[in-house]
């Protein structure tokens, strides 16, 4: 089991460009989560899917951010027209179930996004 795989590990974009981040969850896990981590804000919840269906995107900035999970083996987070304030480490996590004590998050190593 390779764990949660995130690609790329590092991404540098120019202001206004698009960034797509990829996540491959652990096989058999029903829930996939996206978090953003910065020094100032810490770990912030963005969105999550259960069995590929979007459940809660309350943490997503309404403009420019979107997430999809087209199949059970990967999810993407897309940021359009990136801004310097989008610079952060984006973490993907999966869990066996999305409630109770089985809601243990297994995180990937993250994608460090730098917007110049």
């Amino acid at each position, binding site marked *: 089991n390779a764990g*949660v795989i995130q690609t790329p590990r590092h991404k540098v974009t120019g202001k206004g460009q698009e960034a797509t981040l990829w996540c491959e969850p652990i096989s058999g896990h029903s*829930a996939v*989560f996206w*978090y953003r981590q910065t020094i100032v804000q*810490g*770990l912030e*919840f963005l969105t*999550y899917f*259960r069995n590929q269906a979007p*459940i*809660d995107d*309350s*943490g997503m900035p309404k403009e420019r951010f979107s997430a999809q999970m087209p199949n059970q083996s990967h999810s993407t987070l897309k940021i359009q027209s990136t801004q310097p304030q989008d610079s952060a480490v984006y*973490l993907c*996590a999966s869990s066996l179930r*999305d*409630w*109770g*004590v089985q*809601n*243990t*998050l*297994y*995180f*990937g*190593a*993250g994608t460090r996004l730098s917007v110049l």
Partner: protein
Amino acid sequence: SQWGEENLQALSIQEGEDVTMNCSYKTYTTVVHWYRQDSGRGPALIILIRSNEREKRSGRLRATLDTSSQSSSLSITAAQCEDTAVYFCATDGTQVVGQLTFGRGTRLQVYA
């Protein structure tokens, strides 16, 4: 909304010492997770304590939970250099299934 917050943000101790990190939260939680994050890696669960438990042990780790004061603590006995990491508490809630809310974290440095 629910949140978790560690009271101390940075700790530096010598190898062999014991250390305790605290976490307080504002709303009911069914379980408190403690994660550690090593440099360049994502957080990883190290211990989990349920709302009906007051104490949980795992090796040199001890977590406590006081639901009346809505606080939890993580203690490490005889810390070692490899315990150097950032430690987070995370709480779930009954209102929003799935989402864990993480505290700001405590950076622990253990030196030889």
